[in-house]
């Protein structure tokens, strides 16, 4: 006896506990299997690129924090580097090393949150997330020691940084560096060989290598699909060429590989921070720059390896003190290009995990 079925139209979001923010997916579901999906963007579109045209370069700096709000130091760094390249501003060496330390600490926070919410989506309901949150709070304390803010730091300036490190920062950082490796081992021991994690994420949501390159994926998503491309190694910026570290890649591009790449990048970030602290030069942290910065007319594209991928700022100047156009190359937004291909054919429960493993931040997707 043949049963008559037809697909059901379902809405996932924008108010949803597992969409990592206000993201919506219109799904056509046949039973439990997704047959078609259409992502809907724009629920957090705040018009940051348009606001840039009415603010000066310095006034735009706090707005960059609010792009990817879990990686504020990285966003600051990308923007500040773009304007420095445009205006020809030099940065003192001590500031460069401190920028690298802050960027890598920020990468650790962002990856901890990404891995924690990945396990949330899988159903572990906050236990691993709050274990990782303990370490995140320790890093937040370090940031608060330096610049007074807990989430949106606005720490970097054109020509350096806003504050130098207080004397208690390096001892506290060293204490953190000593205890973090054992914490990473704890996450690995408890979760990496867990059979539920393996069953729900191995061979699920595979992004093949060719499609990853064709869909302009970047960051851990690209590296998990087997492409060894990391801007810190392939197009080094700041002082990254002085440090030795590995670039972990995955083999198959499934959710498990994306999780493993992020986990291993935690260890590499700790290694970079150790080397930076060991080689930290003395001196000033800020070169004087005019308050109303007027870069010469021209354009520049400057990129960094943000924690979600290649974060780039395309800054076009017309010689005045306000930018003519700022375009943000947002990794989370472009990583979502392949979402439809990755989700079709999987069940709804898998869809949440696949979507979570791409690790997006809505502030950057919608800008």
């Amino acid at each position: 006896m043949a049963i008559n079925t037809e697909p059901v139209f379902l809405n996932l979001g924008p108010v949803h506990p597992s969409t990592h923010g206000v993201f919506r997916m219109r799904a056509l579901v046949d039973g439990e299997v997704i047959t078609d999906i259409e992502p809907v963007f724009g629920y957090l579109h705040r018009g940051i690129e348009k606001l840039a045209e009415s603010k000066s370069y310095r006034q735009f700096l706090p707005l960059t924090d609010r792009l990817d709000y879990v990686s504020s130091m990285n966003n600051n760094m990308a923007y500040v580097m773009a304007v420095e390249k445009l205006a020809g501003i030099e940065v003192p060496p001590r500031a460069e090393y401190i920028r690298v330390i802050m960027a890598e600490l920020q990468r650790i926070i962002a990856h901890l949150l990404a891995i924690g919410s990945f396990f949330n989506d899988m159903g572990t309901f906050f236990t691993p997330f709050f274990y990782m949150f303990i370490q995140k709070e320790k890093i937040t304390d370090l940031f608060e020691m330096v610049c007074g803010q807990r989430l949106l730091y606005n720490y970097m300036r054109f020509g350096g940084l806003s504050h130098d490190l207080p004397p208690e920062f390096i001892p506290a950082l060293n204490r953190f560096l000593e205890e973090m490796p054992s914490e990473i081992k704890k996450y690995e021991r408890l979760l990496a060989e867990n059979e539920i994690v393996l069953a729900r994420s191995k061979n699920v949501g595979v992004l093949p290598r060719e499609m990853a390159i064709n869909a302009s994926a970047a960051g851990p998503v690209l590296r998990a699909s087997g492409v060894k491309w990391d801007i810190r190694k392939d197009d080094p910026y700041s002082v990254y060429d002085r440090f030795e570290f590995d670039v972990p890649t995955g083999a198959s591009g499934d959710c498990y590989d994306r999780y493993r790449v992020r986990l291993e990048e935690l260890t590499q970030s700790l290694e970079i921070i150790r080397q930076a602290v060991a080689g930290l030069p003395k001196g000033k942290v800020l070169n004087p720059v005019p308050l109303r910065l007027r870069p010469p007319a021209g354009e520049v594209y400057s990129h960094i390896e943000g924690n979600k991928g290649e974060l780039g700022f395309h800054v076009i100047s017309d010689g005045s003190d306000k930018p003519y156009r700022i375009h943000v190359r947002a990794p989370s937004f472009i990583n979502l290009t392949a979402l439809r291909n990755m989700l079709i054919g999987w069940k709804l429960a898998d869809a949440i995990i696949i979507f979570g493993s791409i690790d997006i931040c809505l502030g950057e997707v919608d800008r």
Partner: protein
Amino acid sequence: MTVGLDYNRIIDVLPEDLASGAVAFEAHGLVIQPEVLTGIAAFLKTEPGLELDYLCSITGVDCTEYFEVDYLLYSLKLNHRFTLKVRLADRSEPVIPSLTGLWLGAELQEREIYDLLGITFSGHPEMKRIFLWEGFSGHPLRKDYGHGH
């Protein structure tokens, strides 16, 4: 270190019919006519020695007299990059061919430029607004977009 390719090298190897569409070289990018965009992009993607197979980003700019769309291409294997710029003089109905046939990564970025600047990409599978809602009047990133909207 990612090397920016010298545009002379590109012009030398381009086939005759595509090279005629190259207009100028400005600000590290090769300015081309919209008609040869798909041809040149396909050539740059597959030509051995160039292999610019990664579309990094598409930027749309409103340069008051004309619109400009910048394409930043990378080669992950050979570690070099190149920029293509297309200028559209028609401000009332700007149209440019879509690159979604070559790169899946162009899909969302072209929708964003349509939404915020009003440039239509012909051949795009789903040319509709992405961030703003249907019924929003105007294209905000245009320089003549007033705050009265």
